[in-house]
């Protein structure tokens, strides 16, 4: 009659699907802002990426005879994140190719959820950046005069207010800092992420830029708010699978991301470096993990 099993016999109710749903909710303000700023074409990009990611994962698990995993919503998160990192004017077939790379190559072939070495959305964006020229030609707000993205050579930096509201050229979800920060606060409040990663990331970019921009705090802040640092720090660098779990690990990871972003921006040949920096730190994560395990209570002197 009574079932035998080892304790614990109750559960917190936390679930992968619940966490992913929180991430989607947190990304919604940025997605809505993207559609408002860049027009309906942004919506088509978002829908294409999300639908292709989910469909591709469903198809893969079906063919590979794995347990169906799309209902954990992780594929939807990948699709949404990828879309928000793409310009609104990108051809939709390129979105499908990008989704294919993210879900099949980066995620499923490495063993599916939790087994991927790098963040699928980031890796797909980098792949698309190298493969398609369209990513370099950023989209612009519907009613704005086309120009260059703030970080492109020779472009002028928008003022801080514009950087917060997002009415300037860039990827769908990366320009509206306010929406991203609201999402970030939601995730911290819901305890899906901690502050360590984003703060270390954005803090490092701020300090580095402050030193490089002649000790100008406004310019340094602009460097934090543009070029995908905010979306990268809050949503990509905090990806569980590809970033360290412990507080110190997160801080090191965040500082590394910030450092490489700035090195690429100031000394590299690409105008923006967030994707490359996160991708690089993803690969270093297993090593960071090894250095930053919690000290076990009762070992090596007083805690």
């Amino acid at each position, binding site marked *: *009659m*009574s*079932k*035998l*099993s*080892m*304790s*614990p*016999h*109750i*559960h*917190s*109710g*936390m*679930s*992968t699907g*619940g*966490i992913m749903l929180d991430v989607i909710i947190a990304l919604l303000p940025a997605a809505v802002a993207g559609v408002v700023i860049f027009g309906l074409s942004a919506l088509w990009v978002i829908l294409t990426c999300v639908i292709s990611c989910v469909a591709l994962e469903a198809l893969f698990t079906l063919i590979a005879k794995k347990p169906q*995993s799309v209902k*954990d919503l*992780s594929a939807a998160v990948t699709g949404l994140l990828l879309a928000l990192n793409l310009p609104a004017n990108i051809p939709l077939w390129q979105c499908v190719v990008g989704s294919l790379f993210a879900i099949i190559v980066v995620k499923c072939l490495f063993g*599916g*959820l*939790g*087994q991927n070495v790098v963040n699928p959305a980031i890796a797909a964006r980098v792949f698309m950046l190298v493969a398609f020229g369209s990513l370099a030609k950023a989209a612009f707000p519907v009613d704005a005069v086309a120009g260059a993205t703030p970080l492109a050579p020779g472009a002028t930096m928008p003022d801080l207010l514009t950087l917060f509201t997002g009415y300037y050229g860039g990827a769908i979800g990366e320009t509206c800092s306010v929406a991203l920060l609201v999402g970030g606060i939601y995730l911290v409040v819901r305890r899906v992420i901690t502050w360590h990663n984003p703060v270390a990331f954005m803090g490092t970019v701020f300090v580095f830029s402050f030193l490089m921009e002649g000790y100008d705090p406004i310019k340094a802040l602009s460097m934090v708010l543009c070029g995908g640092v905010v979306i990268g720090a809050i949503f990509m660098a905090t990806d*569980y*699978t590809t970033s*360290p*779990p*412990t*507080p*110190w690990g997160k801080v090191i990871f965040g500082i590394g991301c910030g450092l490489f972003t700035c090195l690429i921006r100031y000394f590299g040949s690409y105008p923006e470096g967030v994707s490359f920096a996160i991708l690089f730190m993803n690969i270093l994560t297993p090593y960071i993990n090894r250095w930053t*395990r*919690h*000290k*076990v*209570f*009762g*070992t090596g002197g*007083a*805690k």
Partner: protein
Amino acid sequence: MASYLHGVHVPHRKKTRHKPVLRMDIPKVVTIPMSMHIGAPSVPIVKVGDEVKVGQKIAEAGGFVSVPVYSGVSGKVSKIKDYLDANGRTAPAIVIESDGLQTVAETVIPPIVTNREELLTALKESGIVGLGGAGFPTHVKFAVEPERIDYLVINGAECEPYVTSDTITMMERSEDMGYALRVLCDILGIRKVVVGIENNKKRAAVAMRKMAADIVEAEVSVKMLPSVYPQGGEKVLIYHTVGRVVPEGKLPIDAGCIVINCTTLATIGTYLKTGMPLVEKCVTVDGGAVTNPQNVLAPVGTAIAELFEACGGLTCDPAKILYGGPMMGVTVPDTTEPVMTNTNAVMALTKKEAWLPKTTACIRCGSCTNHCPFGLAPMAISHAYKVGDVETLKTLNVETCMLCGCCSFVCPANRPLVQRNKLAKELLKELRAKEGK
């Protein structure tokens, strides 16, 4: 990094804490296992057909880490059978048919305790073991040089959901606790006593403060602790009450502390005052399947079915029946199992309460390691165990794990983390035993 050990917020569900304790009718039959404590099983000294009385010794200690066992009813020994306990050990169990008279044995007289030797003998003769659940013989804990005891820590944390028997003890038996403390402190020269209570037990804390004020033999303080599971874990409690760290693989006494559960202390008090050994237990009977959850005073050996009966019976077929709370409790196959000396609660959980999500893939979120009170890395341990990497296992300090279950509780993928920790501990224990030979 943290000055406070992690843990998890578990639901409290302590709805029985302000209900009066029910003294149940004497059961017709009690089954008293000889393996209710940690250590060697006790050895029966009665045979089938013998008449026994309440408080009469029915088994002798089977070694140093062992205790004598007493009958909680008067009646006749009807059977001595084999009993398989939750740890997989088989030991005798004495079955006694009660005559309902509850005649008290002549041997139940207060012990004379004037020095350390007499105190240790009395503790051993009392049959008292750690009543928080571990069942470690209390006399063994105190059999250390008295100078080594800097602190006596009284565990009143009771961090398990549902369970309130310790809370009730602190509220209703503080006099017995105080009596025991005075004797222990006086004879062993203990100068400092700390009572650790979770801050969701305000009334118990009031009773404890009142008790503390009456004790002159030692400095007794009451420390309120946040209600964070596993606050009552021995090493966690020591760290949060006196700020000391018990080194890995060591005992509390190596950090100058002895920890005893508040009910254990109250039972010592009762024995020293009256000579009545450990023969009955206050047990929290709760869980969604119990009609009228409450604390029940029952003789050791009472079938748990009778406890449920005393609480109005079960409303539905329970999904799980447990000894102890839902975080660390042990499942029992059916309700014929007896109440043991270390049983503090009996649960009948409904399907809804005992619901566990399906196990899915690890997403490496790190919740397990970030919530582990000892900072272990359960996902790494789990992986090393699964692939049989013993060398890595040895570096992951899995032997420190107290099996509190925080990791499994918080895991969004509901991975069997604490379960694998236990297997890993067993594996290393076996290997070390082999190496030792």
